[in-house]
């Protein structure tokens, strides 16, 4: 879509996120090395690879949870492109509350387990200055509905929810402030397949409706097949192959990608 737009001044021609030479070492070991890519508005990028391939390290560096050793992460903010690695921590954290969202693999890491569902969804609103209880509550009910949680569960704590509901609540809590970029770390990990399928359906709908850009880390190829426009395959901290999702999955070039694709069990 963006490629057909020849108007060079349009915002969509600028990458939302531009990563150059991102490297993170753990002492002598490599977390991830020399990762570069551009993410355009509305695009969903999948990062796949086996355990220990550096996917989560990469995501943490991108989301500002961990400082990378080298490289830059340029994000297209409302005030123009800025390097999130060197920006002040206050600005980075403000961005993490507004323009960004982070969905953890384990909803317990992303939710406040002692706070009701409504409070969880409302937290980001209150963090950016919402001070009207009625409005916050209305918005929370609206978002619970969008992630298929009944409105009468609004005052229940997340520990009264099933795993799938917790994960949906975490997604609602993250998307309520209308972020432009969502980081997801194994969003469907630890869920049974039927719940996974519904969650993926939901995510796909939300991403398309809101025009979100997303970076999804997973080891589940089915997830990227459904959600991702483009795919990056990582092994031992390096990106070994990247391209359009269908292209990479249907015609894998690198030996490791071939192994990965052929390892999926066919039912």
């Amino acid at each position: 879509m963006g490629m057909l737009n020849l108007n060079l001044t349009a915002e969509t021609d600028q990458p939302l996120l531009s990563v150059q030479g991102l490297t993170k070492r753990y002492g002598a070991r490599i977390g991830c090395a020399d990762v570069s890519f551009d993410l355009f508005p509305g695009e969903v990028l999948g990062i796949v690879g086996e355990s220990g391939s550096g996917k989560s390290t990469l995501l943490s560096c991108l989301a500002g949870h961990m400082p990378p050793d080298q490289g830059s992460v340029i994000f297209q903010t409302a005030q123009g492109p800025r390097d999130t690695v060197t920006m002040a921590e206050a600005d980075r954290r403000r961005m993490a509350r507004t323009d960004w969202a982070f969905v953890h693999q384990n909803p317990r890491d992303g939710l406040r387990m002692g706070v009701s569902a409504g409070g969880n969804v409302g937290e980001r609103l209150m963090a950016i200055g919402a001070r009207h209880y009625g409005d916050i509550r209305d918005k929370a009910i609206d978002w619970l509905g969008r992630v298929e949680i009944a409105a009468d569960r609004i005052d229940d704590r997340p520990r009264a929810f099933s795993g799938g509901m917790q994960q949906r609540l975490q997604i609602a809590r993250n998307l309520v402030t209308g972020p432009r970029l969502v980081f997801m770390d194994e969003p469907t990990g630890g869920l049974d397949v039927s719940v996974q399928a519904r969650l993926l359906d939901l995510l796909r709908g939300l991403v398309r409706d809101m025009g979100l850009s997303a970076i999804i880390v997973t080891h589940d190829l089915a997830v990227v097949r459904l959600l991702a426009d483009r795919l990056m395959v990582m092994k031992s901290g390096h990106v070994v192959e990247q391209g359009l999702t269908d292209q990479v999955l249907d015609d894998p070039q690198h030996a490791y990608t071939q192994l990965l694709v052929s390892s999926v069990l066919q039912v």
Partner: protein
Amino acid sequence: MTDQAYNFAYLDEQTKRMIRRAILKGIAVPGYQVPFASREMPMPYGWGTGGVQVTAACLTPEDTLKVIDQGADDTTNAVSIRKFFQRTAGVAVTEATAEASIIQTRHRIPEATLTEGQILVYQVPIPEPLRFLEPRETETRKMHELEEYGLMHVKLYEDIARHGTIATAYAYPVKVEGRYVMDPSPIPKFDNPKLSNSAAIQLFGAGREQRIYALPPYTHVVSLDFDDHPFVPSKAPHDCDLCAASDSYLDEVITDDQGGRMFVCSDTDFCRTRREAGHLGPLGVPMQETV
């Protein structure tokens, strides 16, 4: 053991100097929690070790000290701390709020309006207002630094969601001069309006947590709330049964096991002053010249 073995006001001069530096820093940055090297005091944590250290650092031989516990001058905590400073500092003590130059308090602000030159020292059990929402100290410090106070409203949101109103009745969070969110120590929220624009210096000492914070005179302090659920200072819907005061904070006292109860001013000095002036509640008796 002889009383002469102690330095004036128990603490040695270097310790008092260290505490005074923390106090000055606290006054310079209202509402900011200043770490200090809290000493072991001859009383258990939770009995006001922080307040006692702040009082000791502020005391001069000319001072007049008043100590209250939940508004009362005659409760165990107040009596023992008052005795402690009588023995170790030899300062004059009083129960009259207006006569005191330093007032150490636990969980109340006196009803009488404080004046310039007075110092109010609070005993603080937990100085961190975000503690029960975010247990990591590194994270709460960062939140103060970056003014990320949305979480404080999550607590108030939860109150309304569960109880229909903001049910927090004490240790009600306040924002100081539009910057730091502060725990005013467990005073009833009835006292919160008195924090703001007070003529006295207000010092807060937390001994176990090793923090001192302060409100200089005439500091603007706002209790947090929602636009559609504004802050309401609350008290028992009663008049004092002894002095008939309608505007003071009341304690409920159970008088028998037949359901009998009475409401009396929690500020004993305030109540006595009113009774001496001739105000009499339904259960009060005229003051006798007993003391």
